[in-house]
């Protein structure tokens, strides 16, 4: 703060601090607190508001635990979010390594620009683009049949297939950057020392590079997982008849059922259960939160 004042002067610093505080309070904290309160109230007709039925209750939360279908959707959401996370990791790690340690820095800059340009287009448009690419008469099937890899078009948009593809595409950069940063920070001499001592490429990655990149990998995974589990646009745009995402149920409660109370209870459940899941996985893989924050 003192540094800020020294650099920008008192008035500008106060404005900046106030704007940050406004952003946090008015747009994040307060709406969430309101929703949190909603989640413990019942959805009542107007005339009963303030009446004897208007009490704090856990009933909204029990709605979830009493609904096997919703529990099933929740687990599928967790399952496919995990799958997207793992696919992103598998694609990203080699890419991050090549960008950080193999390519010349000048080439890396160009590469990043190319990777970032799609981000200028909104998520909805990018998801919709995938809808077109993956459709039965779409370019992907045309190319694959054209080069003779398949003889009749594949129904891509079925099950969770298209949702997974769309989510991988939407969030892969959130995996790339932390891993790239972590590997970039590794002293190249360490990699060479490992090779010099006789280690194969594989062993060098396993014993030297991956342990070093672990915090980056962990933060990438947490980020991608949470974004996937909370994603609305991609699962709705690329949905097939039998792919339901947990966020879609929340949306249904809120905008079709108009029951904001159960809706917000579901939203907080999703958040809490995801945090629980992530901390469990982190415990199992022996990653600490402080490592990620670094």
């Amino acid at each position, binding site marked *: 703060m003192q540094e800020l004042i020294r650099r920008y002067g008192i008035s500008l610093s106060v404005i900046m601090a106030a704007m940050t505080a406004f952003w946090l309070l008015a747009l994040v904290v307060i709406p969430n607190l309101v929703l949190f309160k909603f989640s413990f109230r019942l959805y009542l007709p107007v005339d009963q508001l303030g009446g004897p039925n208007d009490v704090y209750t856990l009933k909204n939360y029990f709605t979830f635990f009493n609904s096997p279908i919703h529990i099933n959707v929740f687990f599928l959401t967790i399952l496919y979010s995990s799958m997207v996370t793992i696919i992103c990791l598998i694609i990203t790690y080699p890419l991050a390594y090549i960008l950080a340690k193999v390519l010349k820095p000048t080439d890396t800059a160009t590469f990043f620009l190319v990777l970032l340009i799609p981000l200028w287009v909104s998520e909805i448009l990018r998801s919709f683009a995938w809808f077109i690419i993956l459709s039965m008469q779409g370019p992907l099937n045309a190319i694959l049949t054209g080069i003779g890899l398949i003889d009749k078009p594949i129904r891509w948009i079925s099950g969770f297939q298209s949702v997974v593809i769309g989510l991988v595409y939407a969030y892969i950069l959130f995996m790339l950057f932390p891993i790239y940063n972590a590997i970039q920070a590794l*002293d190249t*001499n*360490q990699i*060479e*020392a*490992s*090779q*010099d*001592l*006789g*280690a*194969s490429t594989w*062993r060098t990655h396993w*014993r*030297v590079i991956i*342990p*070093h990149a672990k915090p980056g990998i962990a933060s990438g995974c947490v980020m991608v997982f949470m974004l996937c589990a909370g994603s609305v646009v991609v699962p709705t745009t690329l949905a097939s008849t039998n792919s339901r995402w947990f966020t879609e149920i929340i949306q249904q409660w809120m905008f079709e059922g108009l029951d904001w109370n159960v809706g917000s209870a579901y939203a907080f459940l999703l958040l809490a259960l995801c945090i629980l899941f992530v901390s469990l996985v982190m415990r199992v893989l022996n990653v600490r939160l402080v490592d990620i924050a670094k």
Partner: protein
Amino acid sequence: MSEDVHLSQICMDFGSFRAVNNVEVTIKPGEFFSFLGPSGCGKTTILRLISGFMEPTQGAVKIGGKDMKGIRPNARPTALIFQNLALFPLMPVWENITFGLEVRGVSKEIRRAKAEELLQLVDLHDSADKRISQLSGGQKQRVAIARALAVEPKVMLLDEPLSALDLKLRQHMRAELRAIQKRTGVTFIYITHDQGEALAMSDRVGVMSQGVLQQVATPQEIYNNPVNGFVASFVGENNVIAGKVTFVSGGMAQFETAKGSFQAKLGASVATGDSAKLFVRPEFCSLRSANEAKVNSIPVEVTEIAFEGNFVNVFVRDQAGDTHMVQVQNDPSVPPPAPHTTCQMVFNPESCMILSEAATSRHGH
């Protein structure tokens, strides 16, 4: 246990820049060999060529008579100690040391025992389970040496490994490294820009400038008989006088300069009629009273005395205004002349050399 290393007409180009030019040298088995040269002269490049992180543009690296072309660093019988050591911070000391054995599939018990043994060898006890960050600079140094020794290399490559240490520790580690080398009998190829280090530790020294190997010889030979002005001035201090060779007889020459006429040993590649420079070490100069005429004397005035402990540096100025240095033993019974004394700086014809002033440069292609 150890192998010879033959660098055969090696050149290394980075684009149009030739970092190593036509280096030809054979390092004997079990030898402590140093490459000495200023920063940027291509020393690290040579080491990376030997360890296999680079392939030479021309020429060949042969270890134990075998051409190393196409053999990756992990398959060469060399171990490199990096300038910044490159220890693995996430592994405890003992895993660092035995990493090379781990990748060869040696069992944990044997590795653990080997780690203890190597820690004894480098004089570092009770540190097997410490983290790298808990060690001091000198201890890290020892771990790096132990880690390299663990793979039983035929050739050990060291890239300025002592440069990060403070002076005291550096001098201690010099002796230590030398002792470890003698004990293990491994060929050591050592890189440094510190002439004191190279002279004190090596069996032979190769002095480099701008990618070219200027001279390969024992430390004494390098110091006493440098082949050119670059080697003379890079290794040790000199008083330098420019002039022209007028007469040569039996390895000695007559040298005419603006400061008078001198007799000196004739260096390599200098002949009668050549313009050259006369190099004389400060410790081979002495001061006499002004009227004592002698060969190789320059009338000077004392300007400054620098007391260094076991010796004294006396700075003098000649009539042309050039400063020279005379080094005398510290002897309280014979104090050095006071400033502003006029006297003669004299030196023996046998202890000064006439050398071509420039080094052989890389611009050969």
